[in-house]
């Protein structure tokens, strides 16, 4: 009986020792994780860290709910490829910021940003990284003779041509490198960085089979321009300026299916086209008017607006700079 007792005690002690060892190892592993160090912080910092933790938890919750929502939806939504030409000016960061805030709401969106620059600028690079979007960052410098000079009216030379063509070129190359039927699914949309887009327009364009069209607000010197739809087909265009153009609409008023873009590798924007014919120069080779698909409730709703941002007045800044007292250049605006 005594030996049995001793044996039992020994095993108990051994057991005790193993459990303590495991507990210690576990505690050491916990050191690497997030801690609720509520005992050490001052009450002020405690509130801040609690709020930050709450925010972090909410964001993780959001990400989790977004991830679980996807498999419930219909399989493989076609991706919307948005090509945005951009160039450096004072309001560039603001425009791209609020554009990215809109895009962040749109699922399956791939943003192709093409800078009018000889190289990628840090401003745009950082912005894209922080945006949380799926993106491709490209650059293509406009030749000097094609570029608008200071003081030129905005309609003098077409803008963004080389950049949009570069976006198309990348898209074609990227898709060719990855063969597969699924990769041909998608819609291409040309979105300028100063326009305003509602979230509905992206869902409207997702079902594009060839080229879809819709009204655009605040363009062409009118409240809105739109295709006129009769019997479900586009019969003419309602516009106040040169309605005899093949496709008298704004860049923001149409989207092309990726399949069509890939099937016509020569289709691109013609920088030599006369003013207002830029969109037509691209669409002419792709589709005829009766093949156009009207969206936005048979083109009766305005879901995108051709807003333009004022150039900020820098009189005082220029005066200060003349004195050598300009605002800190290191601060990015």
């Amino acid at each position, binding site marked *: 009986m005594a030996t049995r007792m001793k044996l039992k005690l020994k095993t108990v002690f051994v057991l005790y020792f193993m459990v303590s060892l495991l507990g210690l190892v576990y505690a050491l592993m916990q050191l690497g994780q997030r801690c609720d160090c509520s005992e050490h912080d001052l009450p002020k910092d405690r509130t801040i860290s609690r709020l930050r933790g709450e925010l972090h938890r909410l964001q993780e919750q959001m990400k989790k709910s977004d991830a679980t929502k996807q498999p419930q939806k219909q399989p493989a939504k076609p991706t919307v490829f948005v090509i945005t030409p951009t160039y450096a000016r004072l309001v560039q960061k603001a425009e791209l*910021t609020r554009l990215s805030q809109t895009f962040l*709401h749109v699922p399956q969106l791939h943003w192709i940003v093409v800078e009018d620059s000889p190289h990628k600028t840090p401003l745009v690079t950082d912005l894209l990284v922080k945006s949380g979007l799926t993106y491709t960052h490209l650059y293509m410098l406009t030749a000097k003779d094609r570029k608008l000079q200071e003081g030129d009216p905005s309609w003098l030379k077409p803008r963004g041509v080389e950049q949009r063509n570069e976006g198309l070129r990348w898209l074609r190359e990227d898709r060719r490198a990855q063969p597969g039927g699924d990769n041909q699914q998608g819609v291409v949309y040309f979105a300028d960085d100063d326009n305003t887009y509602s979230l509905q327009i992206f869902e409207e364009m997702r079902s594009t089979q060839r080229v879809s069209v819709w009204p655009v*607000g605040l363009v062409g010197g009118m409240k809105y321009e739109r295709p006129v739809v009769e019997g479900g087909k586009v019969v003419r265009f309602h516009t106040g300026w040169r309605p005899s153009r093949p496709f008298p609409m704004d860049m923001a008023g149409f989207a092309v299916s990726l399949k069509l873009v890939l099937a016509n590798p020569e289709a691109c924007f013609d920088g030599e086209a006369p003013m207002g014919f830029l969109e037509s120069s691209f669409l002419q080779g792709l589709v005829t008017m009766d093949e156009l*698909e009207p969206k936005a409730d048979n083109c009766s709703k305005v879901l995108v607006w051709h*807003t333009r941002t004022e150039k900020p007045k820098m009189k005082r800044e220029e005066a200060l700079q003349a004195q050598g007292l300009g605002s800190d250049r290191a601060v990015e605006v």
Partner: protein
Amino acid sequence: MPKRRDIVAIVLIVLPWTLLITVWHQSTITPLLATRKDDRRDGRSKSRNTFAFKESCSLQNRDIVEVVRTEYVYSRPPPWSDTLPTIHVVTPTYSRPVQKAELTRLANTLLHVPNLHWILVEDSQRRSTLVSRLLQETAVNYTHLNVETPRNYKVRGDTRDPRIPRGTIQRNLALRWLRESYRVNSSQPGIVYFADDDNTYSLELFEEMRSTKKVSVWPVAFVGGLRYESPKVNTLGKVYGWKTVFDPHRPFAIDMAGFAVNLRLILSKPQAYFKLRGVKGGYQESSLLKELVTLSDLEPKAANCTKVLVWHTRTEKPVLVNEGKKGFTDSNVEI
């Protein structure tokens, strides 16, 4: 045959461990339970439900050319948290061609911000259907108010006379609404921010202002004829002046978008409003702030006022030459 002594020994050894484990589990489970409850909490606001993407299956039965009727409501805003202070964003707005566009993109921005309450005040005799419908469709947590600026205060034509304060009456109405809706000793923390509908706001800005205790300030781009205006912050992290060219000797030489006020401060000083008459250009912000805080009470944000997180963008007035006198386009179509 296990003896009683053995059993007692085993129990004595196992008991402290079980106690330890149960206590440890308790402490980790309760925070999880608290967050789960937030998801299910309803009835905050009728507009803050999480809708799903609804699509009618007309594609299978009909022609491609047929209009696909789709209904989608936004799947934001982020879930409401019980611990984050609410940001009450006060936006005065008035009817003009770009109004719907401006409010649309502002709503797209605000839908990313958790615990946000949008107070939209229209400069109109009654609440317009355009704004009401927009607010309902975006599913943002909102309050829709309206008050018309009396004609003698309105901006005449295109002239931007800085002596006539724009949006003042609307902002004051929002302040009054806040004071009527919330009691001083209520525990709901909140921040009040005046956001115009044509500016651009980064999402980081809203998180910076959430920790405001009294009044916090930060730089604003494209104001005062400069790349940006900002408060001057000394090495102790206190504001001592204003880096502006336009009248830097104002009590608060800051733009409306450059500061936020803690709700408790607004409620505790019920007489503080934006001054309506006799306000010199650029002094409107000072007319409110001087009733609330002193310079030394200001809290600098945005890395001690070295980062620009809000831009005072202005949208061009669209040229509507082709509309002519009678209006070329169908006036029933809302823009």
